């Protein structure tokens, strides 16, 4: 059992949950993840770490409502509990002083890139941060990123805030400027990580991405999270979640993430249509769409 300190809506589909798990927080490092289960019937779902308050033992998770489990998560109230929160799992993000480094967060990826940005800044890097969201209302953590980045660039797909366009555009400008960049780390939707990795390859700047395949146990036992990296198959839960973006088979990951699309839709519908459904109307609409 893990106690929920608060669970608030921070965007049209985004929610922020703070979980009291002091032991986990004491051990966790940037780039690792946790696995949660909401209730006895619940699935085991990996969640990126979006913040660690070591003094208070609080883990922050930021999640987007996409199906049954994430919708169910929104119903947990302050003072409530989730049945499991296990971790930290996976390997931490590599830390080094590369001189100048860039972190890129897209969509919900703005959250997990934040502890990585903190760790890289503490490691002595000059840090450029690029974050992007669909529109202004889906944006979050701008102030948090601003407080640690040497330069912060904010983009929106629809131009409602900051730069109009994708995160790859300002990234390309920095690379074209000729400034020496030691390392890039990107977290976000798989297509974003795919195109970003494609962009940086010709510049020969090492580019790491954090992958989010489906998982069950998260300790290497099931192999459900296997990803193709170059010629080899790796398990994201024990070998990752960070991998060299120039070697990742993103198309395979996109397909594997859709493995249960039909069952997920069925489960979400059934949940939304149940008479005791207490979900926010906007979430019900996602299920219907």
């Amino acid at each position, binding site marked *: 059992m893990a106690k929920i300190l608060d669970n608030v809506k921070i965007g049209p589909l985004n929610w922020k949950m703070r979980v009291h798990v002091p*032991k*986990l927080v004491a*051990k966790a490092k940037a780039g690792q993840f946790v696995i949660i*289960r909401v209730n006895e*019937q*619940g*699935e*085991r779902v990996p969640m990126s770490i979006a913040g660690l308050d070591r003094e208070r033992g609080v883990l922050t998770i930021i999640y987007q409502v996409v199906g*049954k*489990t994430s919708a169910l998560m929104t119903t947990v109230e302050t003072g409530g509990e989730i*049945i*499991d*929160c*296990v*971790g*930290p*799992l996976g390997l931490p993000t590599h830390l080094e002083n590369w001189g100048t480094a860039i972190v890129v967060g897209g969509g919900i990826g703005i959250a997990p890139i934040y502890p990585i940005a903190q760790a890289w800044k503490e490691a002595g890097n000059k840090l450029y941060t690029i974050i992007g969201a669909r529109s202004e209302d889906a944006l979050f953590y701008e102030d948090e990123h601003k407080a640690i980045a040497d330069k912060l660039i904010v983009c929106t797909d629809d131009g409602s805030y900051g730069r109009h366009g994708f995160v790859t555009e300002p990234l390309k400008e920095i690379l074209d400027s000729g400034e020496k960049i030691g390392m890039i780390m990107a977290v976000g939707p798989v297509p974003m990580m795919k195109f970003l990795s494609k962009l940086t390859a010709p510049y020969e700047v090492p580019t790491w991405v954090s992958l989010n395949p489906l998982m*069950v*146990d998260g*300790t*290497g*036992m*099931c*192999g*459900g999270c*296997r990803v*193709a990296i170059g010629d080899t*198959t790796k*398990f994201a839960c*024990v070998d990752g979640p960070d991998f060299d973006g120039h070697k990742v088979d993103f198309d*395979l990951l996109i*397909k*594997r993430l*859709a*493995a*249960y699309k039909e*069952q*997920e839709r*069925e*489960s979400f519908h*059934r949940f939304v249509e149940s008479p005791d459904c207490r979900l926010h109307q906007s979430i019900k609409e996602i299920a219907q769409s």
Partner: protein
Amino acid sequence: MAEKIQKKDRMKIPRSSMPEQDPNERAKNFTEVPFGLSEEQALQEASRCLECPKAPCIAGCPVEVDIPGFITLVMEKDYAGAARKIKETNALPAICGRVCPQEEQCEQVCILSKKFTPVAVGYLERFVADYERENNLVVMPKIASPTGCKVAVVGAGPAGLTVAGDLTLLGHKVTIFEALHKPGGVLVYGIPEFRLPKKIVQSECDYLADMGVEFKNSTVIGKSDTIDELFEMDYDSVFIGTGAGLPNFMGIPGENLIGIYSSNEYLTRSNLMRAFDFPTYDTPIIKGKNVAVLGGGNTAMDSVRTALRLGADNAYIVYRRSEAEMPARAEEIHHAQQEGVQFNMLTNPVKFTGDKDGKVVSMECIRMELGEPDDSGRRRPVPIEGSNFTFDVDLVVVAIGNSSNPLIPQTTPGLETNRWGNIVVTEETMQTSREGVYAGGDIVTGGATVILAAGAGKVAARAMHKYLMDKKDMVAGED
């Protein structure tokens, strides 16, 4: 008590056959296949035991159950007493009565088996354990006075549960750390409900908890705490029983297509996560119509029989050797055959093909023939050139074993592993290269059976007890 039957007459009594669900019926449900013996059957079966003084069956049992002792109690209709007799050396009788390969152990060496059929020890073990549990006759065993020693057990599978039970009886305070959200290890994630109902595993774990074993689930040692940190937390000794590790795959083209599972994943989804009851439970599972399970062990049989129960029209075992070389228990193979599983022997997959969504649609195989014996003593399968053929599949389960999990060796300096990553131990004590650290079960041997893991736990518990007592004496001597 009934009149004792003469020895020569006992031999004439036929071995009881286990009543079980009709194969056509059971292939559609997850309810346990065998019903268990009736009281009459159990009494008759018990009366077959010759009570031979040498009792080779005891030595045939990895956990040294006093088999004639408990069978005598059955004859006296003291079923709960019989269960308690077993529990003197085996804390998990309801489980072992179901999943032990008795035909290779106690029953294989039964004197009766020389001329007749052996006493059905497993059936009787199951009968008395079920009788005790179902009639609420479980009592707490006598526990030695507290030693003041603390023991950490990593992994709540058969090895770890055995260590915990044995050391608790001896007065040590045991905490089990389990990575998953339920204790039982392979007993809950791996072995299906129809072979081992989960409520039985839970009740045997509850029994240990009532004895004083502390369970800490959802705790991944190697990640949340290391072995060294356990010692810093004042544990005096540690047992590592983390079980099978990362699943092996074939390493052939197309293996990452959707619809190709490791048996670990397939069984975990169905058993631990109860995906067979989706959408009541949230975890989904792919329900194939044409399902190929690769491998010939018990895990392969569990997987293929699960596929049938999840609605497969065709459920195939694909195995590169012949039936004689299959490592699965004869009983499991027989059950699978009865239920309609199709066996493709001397067949090896070479390639999988998928559709535009990345879902597996077909599997190319090659026929094999048996050549000279290999290192395992079994005849080596050799591909027959040009014998390739393709068949349609929409689900493949790869059940070809596991390699070791790296989480603990990676984070435990000085812990010696072999070239496969298995933890190296001294066989007589199960002690690792680290003082006070013991290991047993699949993390040491690679994939084996529940009872061998329990047997290793028993050896380790004995050695750990000696280690703890010697250490205590030494400290007392210094004072």
